[in-house]
Structures are given as C-alpha cells and as structure tokens.
C-alpha cells in the first residue's frame, strides 16, 4: 500500500479500527491520548462496532477490560506512566486470570519530579506483572506490533495479556512515513476472537477469579510461568506469518552489522534506531562495531541474547530507566544471561534519557569509544550532569 505520514499514536488507533475489537475501555493520558481520541472518533463515526467506554480512571479502565475479556470479548486499551501505575493492581489480575487483553503503552517517566516525557520507567515497573512486553522502535513498528500482539496474546497456548510499548513523544507524536496494511489483510491476519470460557455462556457456567488459597495459588502462578515459556516460539511464528503478509521481517532480537563486530550496544525502543546510524558512521571509520535492538523484554529471551552476544569483546546495555539503589533494569538480566557463556564480553550499563532527556549521537559514539578503550564505570549515567 501507499506510504502515509502519521504519528505513533494515530497508527495504533488505525490498527484498532482495522481489527475492530469488541471492547475498548480507556482513560486518556499524555502521550497516549491521541490513541483513544482518534479511536473514539472512529466509534462516533460508526466506523467500528467496538463498545467504547471512557472510564473514570485507569484502574477502572483495566477492570472493565478484565470483565469484558472474561465475558469473551476481544479487548484493547492504552495508557502511559501514572496511568499504568494506577492500573498496577489490575495488571496482575488480568494476567492471573489469563485474559488476552492488548494494551499500548506510550512510555513516559514516572513522577516525581513531575515529568511527562519519555523513559521506560512505567513499563519496567510492570515487568513482573505477568504481561508480555514488546518494545517498538518507530511508527511502523508501533502499528505492526499492535496487530501482531492480538495473535500472540490470544494464542491458545499462551492466553496472556500483552503490552506493546512505544517511546512517548519520540514515537507517539512524531510524524513518520509508514505503510499500513489493507483492512482485509489485517482482519484475516488476526482472525476471529476465540475464548476458552465465557462469563456469558449460561450452558457452561464458569467462575473467574475466585479466592485462591495456599493450596492452589502456587500452581496457578506456575501455569503463568509455563505459559510464558510458550511465548517465544509463538512470537517467532507470528513474526514469520506477518512477514508473509506485509513483507516486513521482525525478530525478537535484531542485530545490526554484528557479523564481524567486536563491540556492540543493546537498546530497546527508538534509541535502537539512532544506534544504527552511529554504527554506520563508525563502520565508515573502520571500527568493528554493531548494535542490537531488543524487541521482547517479557518473556526475557536470555538464551537467544546470550548466543547473540557471546564472543563480542565489549557490550554496553542502554537502560532508559533506573532501579534506584541497583542499576538499570535491563543490565542485570543481560549480565545474568551471559553468566554461563564461555566467551563473555565485558559489560557496561548506560542509564540514559530519563524524563525525556535527549540522547545525542555524540553520546552514543562516546559509549562505543568507552567500550573500545575499556573506560568508564560498570554503571554509567549518560548525559546526566554528574
């Protein structure tokens, strides 16, 4: 199809319009607002059949999504930052009840100090909530991930809620050229919604979310752990199928010019795009460098990532969030993944871009320089005046 210029929020609303979910319950919050605003216009114009509920809070929005999903409805929502934080309690209930809700998260810092700009603190805080977490780089990925997410969440071996993350403002509000898919292609790709049990099925009455005591809770948690184990093969399959209909090839880990590289930088979100330009520049100077875009954070693809990084001399892990009192949240996961590797690279952590602080090309070059000359600390704060 012809390429059009749209921002990251608009394309998610467009994806929902094509998918036509049964229920969307949401509460607007910057920088996610355009998604629900644009989608509510589709609803008002009668372009979708979706039951759209403008909730009075994010806690209520997620609660409504849980009820709708348990009733057997294909359900979507979107939020950001404090909105995601306000959903916290319900996030665990959605995953614990194994409801395949799809949610776009426009990554934004958490207050305080009060800030509305991009970082990954919101999604990182939800990393243990039992949701699948996919990170997109640009507007095209925001759209493509929103379509693939339904297939992943709703897969009968998985049935887990899925978060598609996109960088607040950097992707949500930037106009980029992107290529939509025809409505029919999207509809056919996601298929009809199937439920395992429905609250509305009177012939097969089902209790959802009952009290789960010491004698069963542990087993139900283990079921979630086990479902997560099925996610990577399913995502690989969904990405393969998506490549067939769109011509766009995605992988959970996307290496860039890594074949003969000695040093590499790992990032999630829009910075992974900037890194590719830096790699090109440094390659032109004869430096043996590459980069890795990580698209999947939960489940964490530890084995796959270890295989990708093994043999490199040095790797920097960029974290757009900080676990205050420890390091960036991605860093220890990568380090742990490499613990059993035979040929371990030296690893450094760079926390960057908190509260929307711009990440500059010179700063990323500086990271490669520090890797090559083995400078800097284990945990570094890139671009902060310290």
């Amino acid at each position, binding site marked *: 199809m012809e390429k059009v210029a749209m921002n990251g929020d608009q394309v998610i609303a467009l994806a929902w319009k094509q998918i036509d979910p049964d229920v969307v319950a949401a509460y607007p919050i910057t920088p996610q607002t355009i998604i629900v605003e644009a989608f509510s216009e589709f609803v008002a114009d009668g372009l979708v059949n979706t039951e759209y509920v403008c909730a009075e809070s994010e806690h209520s929005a997620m609660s409504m999504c849980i009820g709708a999903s348990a009733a057997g409805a294909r359900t979507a929502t979107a939020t950001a930052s404090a909105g995601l934080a306000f959903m916290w309690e319900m996030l665990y209930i959605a995953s614990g*009840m194994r409801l395949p809700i799809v949610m776009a998260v426009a990554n934004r810092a958490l207050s305080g100090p009060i800030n509305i700009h991009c970082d990954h603190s919101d999604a990182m805080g939800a990393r243990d909530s039992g949701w699948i977490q996919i990170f997109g780089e640009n507007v095209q990925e925001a759209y493509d991930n929103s379509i693939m997410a339904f297939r992943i969440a709703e897969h009968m071996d998985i*049935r887990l809620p899925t978060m598609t993350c996109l960088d607040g403002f950097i992707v949500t509000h930037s106009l980029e050229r992107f290529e939509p898919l025809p409505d029919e292609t999207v509809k056919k790709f996601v298929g009809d919604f199937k439920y395992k049990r429905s609250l509305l099925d009177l012939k*097969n009455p*089902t209790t*959802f979310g009952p009290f789960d005591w010491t004698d069963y809770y542990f*087993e139900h948690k283990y079921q979630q752990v086990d479902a997560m184990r099925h996610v990577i093969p399913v995502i690989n399959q969904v990405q393969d199928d998506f490549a067939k209909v769109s011509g766009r090839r995605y992988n959970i880990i996307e290496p860039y010019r890594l074949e003969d590289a000695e040093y590499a930088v790992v990032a999630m979100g829009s910075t992974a795009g900037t890194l590719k330009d830096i790699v090109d520049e440094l390659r032109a100077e004869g430096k043996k460098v590459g980069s890795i875009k990580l698209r999947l954070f939960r489940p964490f693809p530890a084995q796959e990532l270890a295989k990708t990084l093994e043999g490199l001399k040095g790797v920097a892990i960029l974290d757009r969030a900080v676990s205050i009192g420890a390091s960036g949240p991605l860093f220890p996961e990568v380090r742990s993944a490499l613990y059993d590797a035979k040929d371990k690279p030296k690893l450094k952590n760079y926390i960057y871009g908190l509260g929307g602080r711009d990440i500059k090309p010179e700063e990323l070059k500086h990271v490669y320089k520090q890797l090559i000359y083995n400078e800097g600390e284990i945990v570094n704060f890139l671009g902060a005046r310290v």
Partner: protein
Amino acid sequence: MPGEKAGELPEGGMILEAGSSRKYNTGDWRSKRPVCDESKCTNCLVCWIYCPDNSIIVKEGKRVGFKLTHCKGCGICANQCPAKCIKMVEEGV
C-alpha cells in the same frame, strides 16, 4: 494427587462447574458454633435472612437447625436474633 498438578488444573483458577461451593466445607474454619435455645425461638426467621452462608436449615417454614458443614461461626445470626435465643459457643470446649 491426580488432577491436582499445575498442568492439570483449569488455567487462572477458573471453576468450570456451578454450585461447587457445596463441596467446600467452610464449616472447618469455625471457632464458635451457634446454639439455639428452642424454648425462646419465635421462628421469625431473621437468622435465615441474615445468614451469609445459607446455613440456617428451614423445613416447612420452620427453623430446624444449623448446617454446620458450611457455618463459619460468624455470629451474625446470634447478633440479629430479636428473641436473643442464639448463643455462640466455643468449639472444642
């Protein structure tokens, strides 16, 4: 135990049948048991209205006993009884 492993249980704690609470004897939780002084009971059935566990047994419009398999010993019946004929007695004493 067969059928009790994580892989054998309905996912997310779903209960796939109706009325399964009959199988769960919440009476096991009880520390105090309701005892009725039959000479004072006026059969007003206020206890039956208030009991949250459906544990007041009524036959032909008359209160005939307590269903101790499901009575959790909450004491609401004793508290609400207008004739003050229900007392909560320690279990195991």
